[in-house]
Protein backbone atom coordinates (compact mmCIF):
# COMPACT_ATOMS: atom_id res chain seq x y z
CA UNK A 1 0.00 0.00 0.00
CA UNK A 2 1.13 3.50 -0.85
CA UNK A 3 1.99 5.39 2.33
CA UNK A 4 0.46 8.83 2.66
CA UNK A 5 3.02 11.48 3.62
CA UNK A 6 4.30 14.89 2.62
CA UNK A 7 6.74 13.15 0.27
CA UNK A 8 4.10 11.09 -1.53
CA UNK A 9 1.99 14.24 -1.78
CA UNK A 10 4.82 16.20 -3.40
CA UNK A 11 5.74 13.29 -5.68
CA UNK A 12 2.18 12.92 -6.92
CA UNK A 13 1.86 16.66 -7.43
CA UNK A 14 4.30 16.31 -10.35
CA UNK A 15 1.87 13.98 -12.12
CA UNK A 16 -1.18 16.12 -11.38
CA UNK A 17 -2.34 13.65 -8.73
CA UNK A 18 -3.48 11.26 -11.44
CA UNK A 19 -1.42 8.25 -10.30
CA UNK A 20 -2.59 7.67 -6.73
CA UNK A 21 -3.45 4.05 -5.95
CA UNK A 22 -7.09 3.26 -5.28
CA UNK A 23 -7.65 3.46 -1.51
CA UNK A 24 -9.45 0.08 -1.55
CA UNK A 25 -10.33 -2.51 -4.16
CA UNK A 26 -13.72 -3.57 -5.46
CA UNK A 27 -13.48 -7.38 -5.21
CA UNK A 28 -15.98 -10.02 -6.29
CA UNK A 29 -17.10 -12.03 -3.26
CA UNK A 30 -15.36 -15.38 -2.75
CA UNK A 31 -17.45 -18.43 -1.88
CA UNK A 32 -16.01 -18.72 1.63
CA UNK A 33 -14.37 -16.55 4.30
CA UNK A 34 -13.20 -17.16 7.86
CA UNK A 35 -15.25 -14.20 9.07
CA UNK A 36 -17.97 -12.17 7.38
CA UNK A 37 -18.86 -8.77 8.81
CA UNK A 38 -22.27 -7.47 7.76
CA UNK A 39 -22.35 -3.68 7.59
CA UNK A 40 -19.63 -1.48 6.09
CA UNK A 41 -20.06 1.42 8.45
CA UNK A 42 -17.50 2.68 10.93
CA UNK A 43 -18.01 -0.19 13.35
CA UNK A 44 -17.88 -2.91 10.68
CA UNK A 45 -14.78 -1.46 9.04
CA UNK A 46 -13.06 -1.01 12.41
CA UNK A 47 -13.94 -4.60 13.36
CA UNK A 48 -12.36 -5.94 10.18
CA UNK A 49 -9.29 -3.79 10.72
CA UNK A 50 -8.74 -5.00 14.29
CA UNK A 51 -9.46 -8.63 13.28
CA UNK A 52 -6.54 -8.32 10.86
CA UNK A 53 -4.27 -6.20 13.03
CA UNK A 54 -4.79 -7.69 16.50
CA UNK A 55 -5.79 -11.26 15.67
CA UNK A 56 -4.14 -11.97 12.30
CA UNK A 57 -7.47 -12.96 10.78
CA UNK A 58 -7.33 -11.56 7.26
CA UNK A 59 -9.63 -13.89 5.31
CA UNK A 60 -12.47 -11.51 6.08
CA UNK A 61 -15.25 -9.94 4.02
CA UNK A 62 -17.28 -6.85 4.81
CA UNK A 63 -20.69 -6.94 3.15
CA UNK A 64 -22.38 -3.59 2.65
CA UNK A 65 -25.83 -3.05 1.15
CA UNK A 66 -25.02 0.47 -0.03
CA UNK A 67 -21.61 2.06 -0.09
CA UNK A 68 -19.14 2.38 2.76
CA UNK A 69 -19.51 5.57 4.72
CA UNK A 70 -23.04 6.15 3.41
CA UNK A 71 -24.86 5.28 6.62
CA UNK A 72 -24.55 6.65 10.12
CA UNK A 73 -20.76 7.04 9.99
CA UNK A 74 -21.33 9.79 7.44
CA UNK A 75 -24.47 11.18 9.08
CA UNK A 76 -23.44 11.86 12.67
CA UNK A 77 -22.32 15.09 14.31
CA UNK A 78 -18.74 13.78 14.80
CA UNK A 79 -18.63 14.15 18.60
CA UNK A 80 -16.13 12.07 20.56
CA UNK A 81 -16.35 11.88 24.36
CA UNK A 82 -16.18 9.56 27.36
CA UNK A 83 -18.14 11.59 29.92
CA UNK A 84 -20.04 8.66 31.38
CA UNK A 85 -20.83 7.90 35.00
CA UNK A 86 -21.20 4.13 34.98
CA UNK A 87 -17.98 2.10 35.02
CA UNK A 88 -18.89 -0.10 32.05
CA UNK A 89 -19.57 2.91 29.83
CA UNK A 90 -16.72 5.04 31.18
CA UNK A 91 -13.95 2.43 30.87
CA UNK A 92 -15.12 1.33 27.43
CA UNK A 93 -15.29 4.91 26.12
CA UNK A 94 -12.00 5.96 27.67
CA UNK A 95 -10.31 2.95 26.05
CA UNK A 96 -11.76 4.34 22.83
CA UNK A 97 -10.37 7.83 23.58
CA UNK A 98 -6.86 6.33 23.60
CA UNK A 99 -7.48 4.76 20.22
CA UNK A 100 -8.80 8.10 18.89
CA UNK A 101 -5.64 9.90 20.00
CA UNK A 102 -3.46 7.44 18.07
CA UNK A 103 -5.80 6.91 15.13
CA UNK A 104 -4.31 9.22 12.50
CA UNK A 105 -0.83 7.69 12.99
CA UNK A 106 -2.18 4.18 13.33
CA UNK A 107 -4.20 4.36 10.10
CA UNK A 108 -1.77 6.63 8.21
CA UNK A 109 -4.85 8.72 7.48
CA UNK A 110 -5.59 12.15 8.90
CA UNK A 111 -8.90 11.77 10.75
CA UNK A 112 -8.53 15.36 11.98
CA UNK A 113 -9.12 14.39 15.61
CA UNK A 114 -9.64 17.65 17.44
CA UNK A 115 -9.76 17.31 21.24
CA UNK A 116 -11.43 20.68 21.73
CA UNK A 117 -13.46 19.72 24.82
CA UNK A 118 -17.16 19.29 25.49
CA UNK A 119 -19.30 21.30 27.90
CA UNK A 120 -22.64 20.02 29.19
CA UNK A 121 -24.52 23.09 30.43
CA UNK A 122 -26.40 23.03 33.74
CA UNK A 123 -29.50 25.14 34.30
CA UNK A 124 -30.30 24.53 38.00
CA UNK A 125 -28.61 23.80 41.31
CA UNK A 126 -29.90 20.24 41.16
CA UNK A 127 -28.31 19.75 37.76
CA UNK A 128 -25.00 21.12 39.06
CA UNK A 129 -25.13 18.47 41.82
CA UNK A 130 -25.78 15.73 39.28
CA UNK A 131 -22.87 16.95 37.14
CA UNK A 132 -20.57 17.11 40.18
CA UNK A 133 -21.42 13.49 40.88
CA UNK A 134 -20.84 12.45 37.28
CA UNK A 135 -17.59 14.43 37.13
CA UNK A 136 -16.33 12.71 40.27
CA UNK A 137 -17.22 9.30 38.87
CA UNK A 138 -15.35 10.15 35.68
CA UNK A 139 -12.24 11.26 37.56
CA UNK A 140 -12.28 8.05 39.62
CA UNK A 141 -12.11 6.21 36.30
CA UNK A 142 -9.16 8.32 35.13
CA UNK A 143 -11.18 10.56 32.80
CA UNK A 144 -10.65 14.32 32.91
CA UNK A 145 -13.63 16.33 34.13
CA UNK A 146 -13.99 19.91 35.32
CA UNK A 147 -17.03 21.42 36.98
CA UNK A 148 -17.40 25.01 35.76
CA UNK A 149 -19.38 27.79 37.43
CA UNK A 150 -21.37 30.38 35.51
CA UNK A 151 -18.45 32.82 35.21
CA UNK A 152 -16.08 30.15 33.95
CA UNK A 153 -18.57 29.03 31.32
CA UNK A 154 -19.10 32.64 30.26
CA UNK A 155 -15.39 33.03 29.69
CA UNK A 156 -15.28 30.01 27.40
CA UNK A 157 -18.53 30.48 25.45
CA UNK A 158 -19.49 34.16 25.74
CA UNK A 159 -21.88 33.85 22.80
CA UNK A 160 -24.32 31.79 24.90
CA UNK A 161 -27.26 33.59 26.50
CA UNK A 162 -26.10 34.79 29.92
CA UNK A 163 -28.82 37.41 30.36
CA UNK A 164 -30.83 37.28 33.59
CA UNK A 165 -34.27 37.11 32.11
CA UNK A 166 -34.22 33.70 30.45
CA UNK A 167 -36.28 30.55 31.03
CA UNK A 168 -33.20 28.33 31.48
CA UNK A 169 -30.36 30.42 32.97
CA UNK A 170 -26.87 28.92 32.76
CA UNK A 171 -25.71 27.89 36.25
CA UNK A 172 -22.50 26.26 35.10
CA UNK A 173 -21.42 23.14 33.30
CA UNK A 174 -19.41 19.95 33.26
CA UNK A 175 -16.45 19.97 30.87
CA UNK A 176 -14.42 17.07 29.56
CA UNK A 177 -11.41 18.89 28.04
CA UNK A 178 -10.10 15.82 26.21
CA UNK A 179 -13.35 15.23 24.30
CA UNK A 180 -13.71 16.60 20.79
CA UNK A 181 -14.56 15.88 17.19
CA UNK A 182 -13.07 14.08 14.18
CA UNK A 183 -13.76 14.02 10.47
CA UNK A 184 -16.21 11.13 10.25
CA UNK A 185 -15.71 10.23 6.57
CA UNK A 186 -11.96 10.00 7.11
CA UNK A 187 -12.55 7.49 9.91
CA UNK A 188 -14.51 5.22 7.56
CA UNK A 189 -12.04 5.66 4.70
CA UNK A 190 -8.98 5.25 6.94
CA UNK A 191 -10.22 1.98 8.40
CA UNK A 192 -11.36 0.76 4.96
CA UNK A 193 -8.00 1.51 3.35
CA UNK A 194 -5.98 -0.26 6.06
CA UNK A 195 -8.33 -3.25 6.27
CA UNK A 196 -8.20 -3.62 2.49
CA UNK A 197 -4.40 -3.47 2.49
CA UNK A 198 -4.27 -6.34 4.99
CA UNK A 199 -6.43 -8.56 2.79
CA UNK A 200 -9.99 -7.78 3.85
CA UNK A 201 -12.52 -7.82 0.98
CA UNK A 202 -14.84 -4.80 1.09
CA UNK A 203 -17.91 -5.82 -0.90
CA UNK A 204 -20.31 -2.96 -1.59
CA UNK A 205 -23.78 -3.04 -3.17
CA UNK A 206 -24.29 -6.45 -1.60
CA UNK A 207 -27.50 -6.96 0.36
CA UNK A 208 -28.07 -9.78 2.85
CA UNK A 209 -31.10 -11.85 1.87
CA UNK A 210 -30.89 -14.62 4.46
CA UNK A 211 -28.73 -16.81 6.65
CA UNK A 212 -27.79 -20.49 6.53
CA UNK A 213 -27.98 -22.05 9.97
CA UNK A 214 -27.85 -25.75 10.79
CA UNK A 215 -27.50 -27.52 14.11
CA UNK A 216 -27.55 -24.21 15.96
CA UNK A 217 -24.43 -23.06 14.09
CA UNK A 218 -24.09 -20.36 11.49
CA UNK A 219 -22.95 -21.75 8.13
CA UNK A 220 -23.08 -18.75 5.88
CA UNK A 221 -25.01 -15.85 4.48
CA UNK A 222 -27.12 -15.51 1.36
CA UNK A 223 -26.63 -12.22 -0.46
CA UNK A 224 -27.72 -10.43 -3.60
CA UNK A 225 -24.27 -11.31 -5.00
CA UNK A 226 -24.39 -15.01 -4.17
CA UNK A 227 -24.04 -17.30 -1.18
CA UNK A 228 -21.02 -16.87 1.07
CA UNK A 229 -19.94 -19.53 3.54
CA UNK A 230 -18.48 -18.49 6.89
CA UNK A 231 -18.15 -20.10 10.30
CA UNK A 232 -18.27 -16.70 11.98
CA UNK A 233 -20.53 -13.80 11.10
CA UNK A 234 -20.69 -10.44 12.86
CA UNK A 235 -23.64 -8.06 12.62
CA UNK A 236 -22.79 -4.33 12.62
CA UNK A 237 -25.82 -2.85 10.92
CA UNK A 238 -27.07 -0.20 13.41
CA UNK A 239 -30.56 0.89 12.33
CA UNK A 240 -31.10 -2.20 10.19
CA UNK A 241 -30.50 -4.60 13.10
CA UNK A 242 -34.19 -5.42 13.47
CA UNK A 243 -34.48 -6.32 9.77
CA UNK A 244 -31.65 -8.87 10.02
CA UNK A 245 -32.88 -10.09 13.41
CA UNK A 246 -36.19 -11.03 11.81
CA UNK A 247 -34.35 -13.12 9.21
CA UNK A 248 -32.64 -14.88 12.15
CA UNK A 249 -35.92 -15.39 14.04
CA UNK A 250 -34.63 -13.22 16.87
CA UNK A 251 -36.49 -10.43 18.64
CA UNK A 252 -34.14 -7.92 20.20
CA UNK A 253 -34.47 -5.13 22.79
CA UNK A 254 -33.96 -2.62 19.97
CA UNK A 255 -36.23 -0.13 18.25
CA UNK A 256 -35.30 1.74 15.09
CA UNK A 257 -35.75 5.49 15.31
CA UNK A 258 -34.76 8.48 13.24
CA UNK A 259 -32.33 11.16 14.41
CA UNK A 260 -31.78 14.40 12.52
CA UNK A 261 -28.80 16.69 12.29
CA UNK A 262 -28.21 19.91 10.42
CA UNK A 263 -25.55 22.45 9.56
CA UNK A 264 -25.82 26.18 9.12
CA UNK A 265 -24.10 28.25 6.47
CA UNK A 266 -20.38 28.63 7.23
CA UNK A 267 -19.40 31.54 9.47
CA UNK A 268 -16.13 32.77 10.91
CA UNK A 269 -14.75 30.88 13.94
CA UNK A 270 -17.05 31.54 16.88
CA UNK A 271 -17.22 28.31 18.89
CA UNK A 272 -14.18 26.16 19.73
CA UNK A 273 -15.97 23.67 22.01
CA UNK A 274 -18.73 21.11 21.70
CA UNK A 275 -21.64 22.42 23.81
CA UNK A 276 -24.81 20.65 24.91
CA UNK A 277 -27.97 22.30 26.23
CA UNK A 278 -28.90 20.90 29.64
CA UNK A 279 -32.61 21.72 29.69
CA UNK A 280 -33.46 19.76 26.58
CA UNK A 281 -31.66 17.83 23.91
CA UNK A 282 -29.47 20.00 21.70
CA UNK A 283 -25.78 19.92 20.90
CA UNK A 284 -23.59 22.12 18.75
CA UNK A 285 -20.05 22.44 17.48
CA UNK A 286 -18.40 24.32 14.65
CA UNK A 287 -16.85 22.39 11.78
CA UNK A 288 -13.50 23.24 10.22
CA UNK A 289 -15.42 24.69 7.28
CA UNK A 290 -17.18 27.07 9.68
CA UNK A 291 -20.62 25.48 9.62
CA UNK A 292 -22.44 25.19 12.93
CA UNK A 293 -23.16 21.45 13.30
CA UNK A 294 -26.29 20.79 15.34
CA UNK A 295 -28.48 17.93 16.46
CA UNK A 296 -30.89 16.91 19.18
CA UNK A 297 -33.99 14.80 19.63
CA UNK A 298 -35.20 11.71 17.83
CA UNK A 299 -38.18 12.29 15.56
CA UNK A 300 -40.11 10.39 18.22
CA UNK A 301 -41.65 7.39 16.48
CA UNK A 302 -40.26 4.22 14.89
CA UNK A 303 -38.79 5.15 11.52
CA UNK A 304 -36.65 3.80 8.71
CA UNK A 305 -37.11 6.92 6.59
CA UNK A 306 -33.49 8.23 6.81
CA UNK A 307 -35.14 11.61 6.36
CA UNK A 308 -36.61 13.69 9.16
CA UNK A 309 -39.76 15.67 9.73
CA UNK A 310 -39.86 19.39 10.41
CA UNK A 311 -41.64 19.58 13.82
CA UNK A 312 -38.68 17.91 15.54
CA UNK A 313 -36.16 20.09 13.74
CA UNK A 314 -38.10 23.19 14.74
CA UNK A 315 -38.23 22.00 18.37
CA UNK A 316 -34.50 21.23 18.47
CA UNK A 317 -33.50 24.56 16.93
CA UNK A 318 -35.77 26.42 19.35
CA UNK A 319 -33.61 24.96 22.11
CA UNK A 320 -30.51 25.99 20.21
CA UNK A 321 -31.66 29.58 19.88
CA UNK A 322 -32.59 29.65 23.57
CA UNK A 323 -29.01 28.64 24.35
CA UNK A 324 -27.20 30.73 21.70
CA UNK A 325 -29.48 33.46 20.32
CA UNK A 326 -27.11 34.37 17.45
CA UNK A 327 -28.10 31.11 15.74
CA UNK A 328 -31.43 32.68 14.75
CA UNK A 329 -29.58 34.89 12.25
CA UNK A 330 -27.94 31.98 10.42
CA UNK A 331 -29.32 30.30 7.32
CA UNK A 332 -29.70 26.54 7.31
CA UNK A 333 -27.44 24.90 4.79
CA UNK A 334 -28.37 21.23 5.06
CA UNK A 335 -30.46 18.86 7.17
CA UNK A 336 -30.41 15.08 7.09
CA UNK A 337 -31.37 12.02 9.09
CA UNK A 338 -30.03 8.62 10.04
CA UNK A 339 -31.69 5.58 11.59
CA UNK A 340 -30.61 4.67 15.10
CA UNK A 341 -30.65 1.29 16.79
CA UNK A 342 -32.17 2.48 20.08
CA UNK A 343 -31.66 -0.09 22.82
CA UNK A 344 -34.05 -0.40 25.72
CA UNK A 345 -31.59 0.89 28.32
CA UNK A 346 -29.66 3.35 26.14
CA UNK A 347 -26.49 1.24 26.14
CA UNK A 348 -25.12 -0.93 23.35
CA UNK A 349 -24.88 -4.70 22.92
CA UNK A 350 -21.61 -6.39 21.85
CA UNK A 351 -22.03 -10.08 22.47
CA UNK A 352 -22.29 -13.63 21.24
CA UNK A 353 -25.75 -14.98 20.47
CA UNK A 354 -27.57 -18.29 20.99
CA UNK A 355 -26.52 -19.19 17.42
CA UNK A 356 -22.93 -20.46 17.45
CA UNK A 357 -20.68 -18.28 15.30
CA UNK A 358 -23.12 -15.37 15.14
CA UNK A 359 -22.05 -12.21 16.91
CA UNK A 360 -24.06 -9.09 17.60
CA UNK A 361 -22.98 -5.45 17.71
CA UNK A 362 -25.91 -3.04 18.01
CA UNK A 363 -27.88 -0.69 20.24
CA UNK A 364 -25.63 2.35 19.85
CA UNK A 365 -28.45 4.86 20.18
CA UNK A 366 -27.09 8.41 19.83
CA UNK A 367 -23.51 7.45 20.62
CA UNK A 368 -22.23 5.22 17.86
CA UNK A 369 -19.63 7.42 16.19
CA UNK A 370 -17.40 8.05 19.21
CA UNK A 371 -17.48 4.32 19.97
CA UNK A 372 -16.18 3.33 16.52
CA UNK A 373 -12.62 2.29 17.50
CA UNK A 374 -13.50 0.71 20.86
CA UNK A 375 -16.49 -1.08 19.36
CA UNK A 376 -14.39 -2.46 16.50
CA UNK A 377 -11.59 -3.47 18.85
CA UNK A 378 -13.82 -5.32 21.35
CA UNK A 379 -16.05 -6.84 18.66
CA UNK A 380 -12.98 -8.16 16.84
CA UNK A 381 -11.82 -9.68 20.15
CA UNK A 382 -15.24 -11.21 20.78
CA UNK A 383 -15.32 -12.77 17.29
CA UNK A 384 -11.69 -13.92 17.17
CA UNK A 385 -11.56 -15.41 20.68
CA UNK A 386 -15.23 -16.46 20.77
CA UNK A 387 -15.56 -14.75 24.16
CA UNK A 388 -16.27 -11.21 25.25
CA UNK A 389 -13.46 -8.93 26.45
CA UNK A 390 -13.81 -7.44 29.93
CA UNK A 391 -14.37 -4.05 28.29
CA UNK A 392 -17.59 -5.21 26.63
CA UNK A 393 -18.67 -7.71 29.29
CA UNK A 394 -21.25 -5.22 30.56
CA UNK A 395 -22.69 -4.86 27.06
CA UNK A 396 -24.12 -8.38 27.06
CA UNK A 397 -27.52 -9.22 25.62
CA UNK A 398 -28.51 -11.20 28.70
CA UNK A 399 -28.65 -8.11 30.92
CA UNK A 400 -32.24 -7.54 29.84
CA UNK A 401 -33.12 -10.97 31.25
CA UNK A 402 -31.23 -10.58 34.51
CA UNK A 403 -32.09 -6.94 35.17
CA UNK A 404 -28.49 -5.67 35.12
CA UNK A 405 -29.38 -2.76 32.87
CA UNK A 406 -26.95 0.03 32.00
CA UNK A 407 -29.47 2.84 32.08
CA UNK A 408 -26.99 5.75 32.13
CA UNK A 409 -29.67 8.34 31.50
CA UNK A 410 -32.40 6.74 33.58
CA UNK A 411 -34.88 6.94 30.73
CA UNK A 412 -36.17 3.38 30.89
CA UNK A 413 -37.53 1.60 27.87
CA UNK A 414 -39.31 4.53 26.21
CA UNK A 415 -36.52 5.29 23.79
CA UNK A 416 -38.46 8.01 22.00
CA UNK A 417 -38.68 10.09 25.19
CA UNK A 418 -35.69 12.36 25.40
Amino acid at each position, binding site marked *: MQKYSIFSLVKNAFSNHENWDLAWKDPTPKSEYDVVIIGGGGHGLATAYYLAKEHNITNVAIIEKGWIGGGNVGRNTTIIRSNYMYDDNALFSEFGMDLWRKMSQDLNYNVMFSPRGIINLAHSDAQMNVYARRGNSMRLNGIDAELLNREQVKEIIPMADFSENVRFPIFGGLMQPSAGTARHDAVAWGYARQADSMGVDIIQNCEVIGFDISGGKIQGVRTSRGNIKAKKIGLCVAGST*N*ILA*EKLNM*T*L*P*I*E*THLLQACVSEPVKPVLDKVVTFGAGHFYISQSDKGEMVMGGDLD*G*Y*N*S*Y*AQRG*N*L*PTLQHVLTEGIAMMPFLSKLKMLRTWGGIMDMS*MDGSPIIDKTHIEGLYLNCGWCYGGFKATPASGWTFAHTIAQDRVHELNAGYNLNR*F*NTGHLLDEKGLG*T*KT*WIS
Partner: protein
Amino acid sequence: MLHIKCPHCGMRSQNEFSYGGDASVKRPELGKETSDEEWNNFVYNRKSLRGKHWELWQHLSGCRQWIKVERDTATHEIFNTLKANEEIS
Protein backbone atom coordinates in the same frame (compact mmCIF):
# COMPACT_ATOMS: atom_id res chain seq x y z
CA MET B 1 -45.36 16.63 9.28
CA LEU B 2 -47.68 13.67 9.86
CA HIS B 3 -51.44 14.09 9.70
CA ILE B 4 -53.20 11.63 11.94
CA LYS B 5 -56.93 10.95 11.77
CA CYS B 6 -58.06 10.73 15.39
CA PRO B 7 -61.10 8.41 15.52
CA HIS B 8 -62.71 10.90 17.95
CA CYS B 9 -61.75 14.29 16.47
CA GLY B 10 -60.85 13.75 12.81
CA MET B 11 -57.70 14.74 10.91
CA ARG B 12 -55.20 16.64 13.07
CA SER B 13 -51.52 17.55 12.81
CA GLN B 14 -48.76 15.51 14.43
CA ASN B 15 -48.02 18.36 16.85
CA GLU B 16 -51.17 17.50 18.82
CA PHE B 17 -50.11 13.90 19.44
CA SER B 18 -47.54 12.12 21.52
CA TYR B 19 -46.15 8.69 20.73
CA GLY B 20 -46.73 5.57 22.81
CA GLY B 21 -44.89 2.77 21.04
CA ASP B 22 -45.74 -0.61 19.53
CA ALA B 23 -49.47 -1.32 19.90
CA SER B 24 -49.15 -5.04 19.26
CA VAL B 25 -47.36 -5.65 22.57
CA LYS B 26 -49.67 -7.29 25.10
CA ARG B 27 -49.14 -7.21 28.86
CA PRO B 28 -49.08 -10.72 30.39
CA GLU B 29 -52.43 -11.50 31.96
CA LEU B 30 -52.87 -10.73 35.63
CA GLY B 31 -53.18 -13.66 38.04
CA LYS B 32 -51.58 -16.07 35.62
CA GLU B 33 -48.19 -17.70 35.94
CA THR B 34 -45.84 -15.61 33.77
CA SER B 35 -42.38 -16.73 32.72
CA ASP B 36 -39.37 -14.40 32.64
CA GLU B 37 -39.32 -14.74 28.89
CA GLU B 38 -42.90 -13.49 28.59
CA TRP B 39 -42.03 -10.49 30.76
CA ASN B 40 -38.96 -9.78 28.62
CA ASN B 41 -41.01 -9.87 25.46
CA PHE B 42 -43.49 -7.46 26.99
CA VAL B 43 -41.02 -5.02 28.52
CA TYR B 44 -38.00 -5.06 26.18
CA ASN B 45 -38.21 -7.05 22.98
CA ARG B 46 -39.61 -5.32 19.89
CA LYS B 47 -39.92 -6.31 16.25
CA SER B 48 -39.67 -2.68 15.05
CA LEU B 49 -39.71 -3.59 11.37
CA ARG B 50 -39.58 -1.57 8.20
CA GLY B 51 -43.09 -1.28 6.77
CA LYS B 52 -46.54 -1.43 8.35
CA HIS B 53 -46.50 -0.87 12.12
CA TRP B 54 -49.39 -0.68 14.57
CA GLU B 55 -48.58 1.85 17.24
CA LEU B 56 -50.13 3.81 20.08
CA TRP B 57 -50.51 7.57 19.98
CA GLN B 58 -52.18 9.87 22.49
CA HIS B 59 -54.15 12.86 21.25
CA LEU B 60 -52.55 14.90 24.01
CA SER B 61 -53.47 18.41 22.84
CA GLY B 62 -56.92 17.31 21.73
CA CYS B 63 -59.32 14.78 23.24
CA ARG B 64 -56.48 13.19 25.28
CA GLN B 65 -57.58 9.72 24.19
CA TRP B 66 -55.11 6.94 23.36
CA ILE B 67 -55.56 5.62 19.83
CA LYS B 68 -54.03 2.96 17.61
CA VAL B 69 -52.44 3.97 14.31
CA GLU B 70 -51.23 1.76 11.48
CA ARG B 71 -48.33 3.59 9.82
CA ASP B 72 -45.55 2.66 7.43
CA THR B 73 -42.22 3.18 9.21
CA ALA B 74 -40.39 3.93 5.95
CA THR B 75 -42.87 6.15 4.08
CA HIS B 76 -44.95 7.40 7.07
CA GLU B 77 -48.15 6.62 5.14
CA ILE B 78 -51.01 6.11 7.59
CA PHE B 79 -53.38 3.31 6.59
CA ASN B 80 -55.77 3.04 9.48
CA THR B 81 -56.63 4.43 12.92
CA LEU B 82 -58.64 2.78 15.69
CA LYS B 83 -59.93 3.67 19.13
CA ALA B 84 -57.80 2.19 21.90
CA ASN B 85 -60.36 -0.46 22.78
CA GLU B 86 -60.82 -1.65 19.20
CA GLU B 87 -58.93 -4.81 18.30
CA ILE B 88 -56.38 -4.80 15.48
CA SER B 89 -57.87 -7.02 12.78
